[in-house]
């Protein structure tokens, strides 16, 4: 019995879906060049203290990786729609391993998307030590945990017909309010709201590049809280979905 095989084929399946791959990897790249290239010489974007190519590189990476993690939800919804979840329930595959494969696939997609944006960032002059690249990447990967749970939640809560619009709307909203496309001004109600969103802290990972502290206590608390709440919701949605009255 091998969970590795299951995960490997899950990855293969995802990477073979060409339209999905083009959109989820290509779209953030295109937007990045559209916004960052004209502003490549802006050294302090919207008061963030970061250069436009750096800030937007991480901002669009946040947008892309959020999408990547949530796409596992779309795959769950699609599998539910064709009855595949019932087929899997009569195999020895455990729920834990099923979700593990889904989350790992989301992370693999997210990593590819991150690397592509790093390369794009480098072409626009973003540079930092290897140590900082790694640190920043690790922080982003940690910041994606609540989105993994959100993907599973949506996959079991939303039908395959509506999961596209729901996910698209949600990531757009989280990206804008979290400052992925442009920095949120550091005062006012919008700022207060932004700081309560997991997407905001994902974008803040860019501060590592200039040696800053990206999250601080507040960031960790917000991320921890979202992870806890969404994990509970995902577990509940899964149980409700699979319990047959």
């Amino acid at each position: 019995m091998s969970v590795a095989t299951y995960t490997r084929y899950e990855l293969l399946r995802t990477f073979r879906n060409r339209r999905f791959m083009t959109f989820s990897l290509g779209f953030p790249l295109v937007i990045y060049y559209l916004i960052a290239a004209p502003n490549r010489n802006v050294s302090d974007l919207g008061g963030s203290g970061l250069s436009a190519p750096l800030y937007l590189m991480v901002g669009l990476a946040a947008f892309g990786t959020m999408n990547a993690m949530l796409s596992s939800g779309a795959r769950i919804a699609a599998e539910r729609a064709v009855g595949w979840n019932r087929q899997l329930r009569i195999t020895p595959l455990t729920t834990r391993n099923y979700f593990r494969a889904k989350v790992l696939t989301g992370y693999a997609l997210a990593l590819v998307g991150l690397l592509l944006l790093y390369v794009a960032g480098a072409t626009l002059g973003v540079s930092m030590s290897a140590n900082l690249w790694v640190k920043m990447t690790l922080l982003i990967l940690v910041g994606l945990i609540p989105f993994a749970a959100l993907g599973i939640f949506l996959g079991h809560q939303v039908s395959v017909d509506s999961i596209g619009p729901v996910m698209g709307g949600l990531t757009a909203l989280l990206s804008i309010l979290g400052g992925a496309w442009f920095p949120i001004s550091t005062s006012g109600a919008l700022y207060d709201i932004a700081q309560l969103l997991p997407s905001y802290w994902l974008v803040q990972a860019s501060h590592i590049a200039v040696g800053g502290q990206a999250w601080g206590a507040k960031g960790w608390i917000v991320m921890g809280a979202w992870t806890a709440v969404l994990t509970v919701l995902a577990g509940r949605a899964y149980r409700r979905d699979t319990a047959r009255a």
Partner: protein
Amino acid sequence: MPWGTVVHVDEPRDGRIELRGLSKSFRSPQGPVRAVREIDVSIGRGETVALLGPNGAGKSTTIDMLLGLTAPDDGTVSLFGMQPTAAVDSGAIGAMLQTGSLIRDLSVRELVTVMASLYPRPLGVDEVIDLTGIGEFAGRRTQKLSGGETQRARFAIALVSNPELLVLDEPTVAMDVEGRHAFWSAMREFAAGGKTVVFATHYLEEADSYADRVVLMAHGRIVADGPPTEIKAMVGSRTIRATLPGADLDALAKLPGVTAAEARGESVVLACSDSDAAIRALLARFPEARDIEVSGAGLEEAFLRLTGDEEAA
């Protein structure tokens, strides 16, 4: 030989499949529907049992409870001494559900390989592809299969688990004649290895040809349980239809093996207790009869006779 290398589960080996007092109701706008009503079935290791009944008889609900996909309102299921979920987790169960398709972006061979990897004692992937006769489309992506090919691939997925109990819910729906043939011969070969097979069908011919035993269901109850010949005698009355202008219905009704005759335009329809005798007599007396068709009476009809009108209950 392909099944000779079977390794049995470590769980109690002499256990049977026992359904005891199994009941299940569903809510519907018209009030509760009693899909399955206190059925008892006991199946021994190695038996091939057909669950026969018309649509809505409760076959799929019974199978869902057997597999642990649906919790019964009442009653118990024991598979070789285990609860359904424990039996599933041990890899002892393989099933082809009535509804459902395949996940996309994998070839059939890849999908069979993934499924094999989930089980402790799978059959070889090539062996299963051979046995189920799906070699010609094993390399094709699952989203490019026809309905019948999808069904056959789903069968391969159920088989590759090398289960002690193979459960098939209306497996031949959407298969063409050739597909059905390949399917049943593979099923037989599998069953011949001492495995237990339970399949649901609404075709009397399938139950008759491929099962050792037929459990007849109607309106959520078991109305008969026995060898196929016995069940066939109960429900298998046939009709002969022939073009015979100006026929003498009284004379036709008196032919050996005929129980009733009826005219439909230029044709006559004969209800038969023995269609072989009837057709010989028909041709001897009425050589001008043509376009002769012999068909089994619909199961629904037979069930109506068997169960009377108690579905009002």
